C-alpha cells in the first residue's frame, strides 16, 4: 500500500486534442494519501470516471504520470496495479454462483482454495450474501448483483486502493444508506485507500474525510467537508455543495472596496486589485446571512419551511438573496435588513475566490 499521485495529468478521448474543450481532464495534480477515504464529487460528465479509470489503469492518460509511492505505473496495466474497482452498474459472471463470483479475483491471482473460502465467507457475511452463496448469480436482483460487484472489490487483501464509481446508483434508497455506512465501517477496519465517485453531495460528505470537487475536467477544490462548506474556493463548490447553495451577488469595486449595489460589503478577500478586469461576484452562503437592525434593506418574498429550518427568499433591487432562519426564529414581515458574516463572505473573480486562486 502506498500513496497515489497524479502529476500534470491531462486526458483526451480524441486523437489530436487542441483547445480546452477537447480535453476530458485538464491540469490534474493530486495526491491520495495511503489509507484515506476520499470522495470525488462533481456533476455527470465532469471527468470523474475518466480520472478513476486512469488510476486503475483501464485508461492511459494522454499526458502526465501516475505514481504509486515513488513507482511510475503510468504504463502498467490494471491487472498488475493491484487496484480494486467497483462500477456504476453491476457486473456479475452469469454462469457462476455467488461464491464463484466472489472467489474469481482471488482464483485468478492464484490464492489457495482454503484461504479463498475464508475470505469469501467473510465478504459474504459483510454484505449479507451468505444465504445465497450457492445460487446462480444470473437470476438475482440488481441490488444483490451490485453487492456481488462490491464484494469482488472488497475481497482482495492488500490492494493499493479500492475505487468506487457511483456504486450505489442502482440500489434502493434504504439499502443505499446501509451499504454506505458499511463501506465507511469497512474503511476503518481494513484501512485501504478508498476513492468514492459520486454526484451526490450527501453521499460524498458522509463517506469521505477528504472531498475532491471536480468541475469541467479539472479539480476545483479538495478539502474536508467543513472547508468546502466554509471556504469554497470556486463558485461551483459554493453552489454545488450546500442546500440551498451559496448566494452569488453582483459586485462592484470602488476605491478598493467591494459594493453590492450601494452597500459596502466586508469580506475576507484581500488584494482585490489583482482581480482587475475580471467579472466579480460576492459569494455568501444562506447560513451566514442574518436579519439585523441595519444593513442591506430587502423585501421578503417567500418563506419555505423544510422542517429543521426555513429558507427565506428576499430581494434587494432585482437580486434574490436566500438566507436560513432556524426553527423558532422570528421572521420579519415585508421589509427588513440583513447582514453578511464577513468571515464567510468572499469575492470571486471569474469564478475563483480572490486571493485564494490555485497555485
Amino acid at each position: 500500500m502506498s500513496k497515489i499521485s497524479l502529476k500534470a495529468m491531462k486526458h483526451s478521448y480524441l486523437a489530436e486534442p487542441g483547445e480546452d474543450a477537447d480535453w476530458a481532464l485538464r491540469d490534474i495534480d493530486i495526491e491520495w494519501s495511503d489509507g484515506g477515504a476520499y470522495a470525488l464529487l462533481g456533476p455527470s460528465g465532469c471527468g470523474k470516471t475518466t480520472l478513476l479509470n486512469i488510476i486503475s489503469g483501464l485508461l492511459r492518460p494522454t499526458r502526465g504520470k501516475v505514481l504509486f509511492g515513488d513507482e511510475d505505473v503510468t504504463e502498467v496495466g490494471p491487472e498488475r496495479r493491484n487496484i480494486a474497482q467497483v462500477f456504476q452498474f453491476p457486473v456479475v459472471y452469469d454462469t457462476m454462483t455467488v461464491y464463484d463470483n466472489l472467489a474469481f479475483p482471488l482464483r485468478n491471482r492464484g490464492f489457495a482454495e482454503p484461504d479463498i473460502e475464508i475470505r469469501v465467507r467473510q465478504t459474504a457475511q459483510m454484505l449479507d450474501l451468505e444465504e445465497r452463496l450457492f445460487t446462480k448469480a444470473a437470476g438475482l436482483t440488481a441490488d444483490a448483483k451490485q453487492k456481488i460487484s462490491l464484494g469482488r472489490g472488497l475481497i482482495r487483501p492488500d490492494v493499493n486502493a479500492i475505487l468506487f464509481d457511483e456504486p450505489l446508483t442502482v440500489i434502493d434508497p434504504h439499502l443505499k444508506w446501509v451499504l454506505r455506512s458499511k463501506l465507511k465501517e469497512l474503511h476503518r477496519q481494513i484501512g485501504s485507500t478508498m476513492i468514492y465517485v459520486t454526484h451526490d453531495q450527501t453521499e460524498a460528505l458522509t463517506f469521505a474525510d477528504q472531498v475532491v470537487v471536480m468541475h469541467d475536467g479539472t479539480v476545483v477544490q479538495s478539502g474536508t467537508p467543513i472547508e468546502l462548506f466554509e471556504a469554497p474556493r470556486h463558485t461551483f463548490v459554493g453552489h454545488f455543495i450546500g442546500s440551498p447553495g451559496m448566494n452569488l451577488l453582483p459586485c462592484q469595486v470602488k476605491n478598493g472596496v467591494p459594493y453590492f449595489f450601494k452597500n459596502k460589503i466586508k469580506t475576507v478577500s484581500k488584494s482585490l486589485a489583482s482581480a482587475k478586469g475580471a467579472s466579480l461576484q460576492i459569494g455568501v452562503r444562506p447560513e451566514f446571512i442574518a436579519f439585523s437592525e441595519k444593513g442591506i434593506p430587502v423585501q421578503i418574498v417567500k418563506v419555505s419551511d423544510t422542517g429543521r429550518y426555513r429558507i427565506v427568499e428576499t430581494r434587494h433591487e432585482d437580486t434574490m438573496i436566500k438566507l436560513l432562519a432556524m426553527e423558532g426564529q422570528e421572521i420579519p414581515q415585508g421589509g427588513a435588513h440583513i447582514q453578511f458574516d464577513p468571515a464567510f463572505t468572499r469575492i470571486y473573480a471569474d469564478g475563483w475566490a480572490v486571493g485564494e486562486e490555485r497555485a
Partner: protein
Amino acid sequence: MSQKIAHPKAWLFVLPVVLLVAFNAIIPLMTVVNYSVQETFGNNLFFWEGVRWFQDVLRSERYQASLMRQLTFTGIILLIEIPLGVAIALSMPRKGPWVSVCLVLMALPLLIPWNVVGAMWNIFSLPDIGLLGRTLNGLGFDYDYTQGPLAAWFTVILMDVWHWTSLVVLLAYAGLSSIPQPYYHAAKIDGASTWAIIRYIELPKMKRVLAIAILLRFMDSFMIYTEPFVLTGGGPGNTTTFLSIDLVKVALGQFDLGPAAAMSLIYFLIILLLSWLFYTLIMRNEQQ
C-alpha cells in the same frame, strides 16, 4: 375498463391478413395434404388412398437413406460452422477502420445467389481445370468429386462452410458487440485471463444469438437444395442426394405426386419438430 366492446364487423379488419396467410401458407399446404392421401392419374381424377403413401415413404429404404444423409450433413456442418463462426467473431477487431472491412468481407458469401455458389464450386473443384481440384491432385490426393463419394461430401461440406459460416460470424459478432464495456473492465480488474473472459463473459452473453444461429443453420441446411444440385446433382450415384433433392426427383422426375406429397409433409414435420426441440431446450436453459 372491464367491459369488452364487441363489434360485429370488427373481424373485417383482420380479413386481409387471414386471406394473405391463407393464400401463401394454408391453401398450398392443404393442396399438398390433398395429394398425400389420394392417387391421381391426371385429368383431375383422384382416388382415395388413405395413409398408404405415408406408410410407403416411411418404409422405403430410399427415403430412410436420404434422411440419414440429410441428418449427417446437417450435423457435420453445424459442428464445423458454429465453433468456427464463434472463433472468427472473437478474433475480429471490435473498433477501428478494419471493422467495416471485415464485416463486408464476411457478408460477401451471403450475397451470392445459391445457384452461383454451386456453379462456382463446381468449376473451382474440377480435378482437371479447377483451382481446388488441381491443387489437391497436385498434392497427391486422388480427388474427383464427380467420381468419389468422399470427395463429393468433402466438397459439398466445404462449400456450405464457405457459404454460411459468415452468418454465424455476423450473429456472434453482433452478440459480442452488445456486451457492455464494464464487463471487460471488471474482468481486467479481477485479473481474468483471455480464456476466462471468453469462457465466463463472452460465451454466456452470446448464448441467445448462438441459439438463433444454430436454429437458422439447422433449418437452412436441412432444406438445402440448390448448391448440391448444381455441384453434384445428388451424385455420384445417390451419395449426395439429400431429402430435398430426392423429393424433387420423386415429384418432378417420376411425377409420383402422392408419395412426393407424403414425403413433403413428413419432411416439414421433422423440421418443425426438431426446431421446436432446439428452441425449448435452449430456452429452458435460459430460465434456469
